């Protein structure tokens, strides 16, 4: 067993323990039938081999999905390729670039409602939990009057996604799926009148094939939860890293526009919102030199890979001096064919939030005495709350 077990251990900065484990071996058994890949090379090798290391047979503890529920992260090529090709144009860099003014407007609207006395406020509740949901709702074309209810179901689904016991969520999940199915059917009736993602999915055709209604429902459900939970974790993890590294914060405040891209990438590398993902062996195979039978699972540790010294010098240092144009891509967006579809949107959301927070909130900082608690979760990695404060009043958007 490794010193740090991502399934059972939930600590704020496991970097020394992870380094100790990585130095011993690229693979460790972390549970019965589950090994962990902990080096940059071992994780990218698994990503590159979807023929053997299947997503369809289980990327989380829930195991293989039913037909129709095998979508995107839960699908293998060629099914995955067909679904992904339908979606990439809708989430392309150019289309996401065009979303930036809308993201900026939402972030400014959110900050306008911050208390004038400087709080303290919970950054999760007041910003990180709001923005990604609002933007994905808009992209999907969810009617305004349905967004609040939908958000509740999304949060429930996110909690259920990494829970070992699914029974308590069964009834709510059925209601959620029924709601999404009604939405899909309604949109299918007038898809040509809309220019949103749901309309695109219900009318999309590739090689004379269309998506099943169930596939569309599960893709929408996936986009709603994946986009929201990861971006809010990425924002608050980055803020916490910056606030606990005063020299890097001073460097950032001196050149916010020049360093925000580096802050986004270093924040994702240093403490990304996902601990890692599972893959399941489709055939008998090997991890390193160790034989693994069909059905074995491997946990690809993003924490381990992103702190691997063979990929990043001084990996346990949070540094805005890194030049990511000369470094391998961090794995917080995954790799290979399963590279995160929302990466372009997430980067824009993080850039706008991290710029606007530090420009409009004078002397923004962690609340006095605040010590964050890691949120217990198998796959996610972020804090329960992020209490912050600033010297009110909030600067007007026109002043920055």
């Amino acid at each position, binding site marked *: 067993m490794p010193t740090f077990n991502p399934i059972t251990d939930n600590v704020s900065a496991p970097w020394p323990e992870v380094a100790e484990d990585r130095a011993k071996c690229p693979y460790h058994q972390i549970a019965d039938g589950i090994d962990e890949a902990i080096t940059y090379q071992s994780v*990218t090798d698994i990503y*590159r081999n979807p023929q053997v290391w299947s997503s369809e047979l289980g990327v989380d503890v829930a195991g293989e999905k039913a037909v129709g529920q095998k979508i995107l992260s839960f699908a293998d*090529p060629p099914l995955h*390729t067909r679904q*992904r*090709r339908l979606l*990439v*144009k809708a989430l*392309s*860099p*150019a289309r996401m670039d065009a979303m930036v003014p809308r993201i900026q407007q939402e972030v400014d609207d959110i900050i306008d409602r911050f208390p004038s006395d400087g709080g303290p406020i919970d950054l999760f509740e007041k910003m990180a939990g709001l923005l990604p949901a609002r933007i994905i709702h808009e992209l999907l074309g969810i009617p305004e009057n349905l967004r609040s209810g939908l958000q509740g179901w999304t949060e429930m689904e996110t909690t259920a996604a990494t829970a070992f016991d699914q029974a308590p969520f069964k009834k709510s999940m059925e209601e959620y799926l029924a709601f999404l199915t009604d939405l899909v059917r309604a949109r299918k009736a007038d898809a040509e009148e809309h220019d949103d993602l749901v309309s695109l999915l219900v009318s999309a055709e590739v090689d004379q094939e269309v998506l099943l209604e169930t596939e569309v429902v599960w893709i929408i459900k996936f986009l709603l939860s994946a986009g929201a939970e990861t971006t809010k974790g990425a924002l608050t993890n980055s803020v916490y890293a910056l606030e606990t590294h005063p020299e890097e914060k001073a460097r950032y405040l001196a050149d916010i526009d020049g360093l925000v891209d580096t802050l986004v990438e270093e924040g994702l590398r240093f403490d990304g919102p996902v601990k890692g993902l599972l893959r399941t062996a489709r055939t008998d195979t090997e991890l390193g030199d160790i034989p693994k039978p069909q059905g074995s699972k491997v946990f690809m540790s993003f924490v381990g890979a992103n702190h691997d010294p063979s990929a990043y010098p001084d990996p346990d240092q949070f540094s805005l001096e890194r030049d990511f*144009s000369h470094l*391998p*891509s961090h794995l917080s*967006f995954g*790799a*290979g*064919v*399963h*590279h995160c*579809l929302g*990466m*372009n949107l997430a980067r824009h959301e993080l850039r706008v939030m991290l710029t606007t927070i530090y420009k409009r909130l004078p002397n923004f900082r962690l609340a006095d005495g605040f010590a964050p608690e890691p949120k217990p979760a198998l796959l996610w990695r972020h804090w329960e709350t992020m209490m912050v404060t600033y010297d009110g009043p909030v600067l007007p958007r026109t002043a920055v």
Partner: protein
Amino acid sequence: MVTSEPTATPPLATDGGGNEIAVHVDHGMCSGTRNCERYYPDIFVVNRDKAWIKSGIEWASADVALLKEVESACPWAAIEVEAPAD
């Protein structure tokens, strides 16, 4: 086939079997994931957040199967390879 600078669309080239190869990177879709660079660093390089095809490629010795793998593995469907399947 030699180009002076990395490019998104080099001129048509010929592989070792005399077959024409065309490789194209759609910069409207490329998101700079470096997938192609990891798969086939002799051909692809990522610069300014986009993938490019290196200059001075010896296409006659290019691994067409690997190029096809790069094409199908590009998560943004940004790489197009026109070449015989084998």
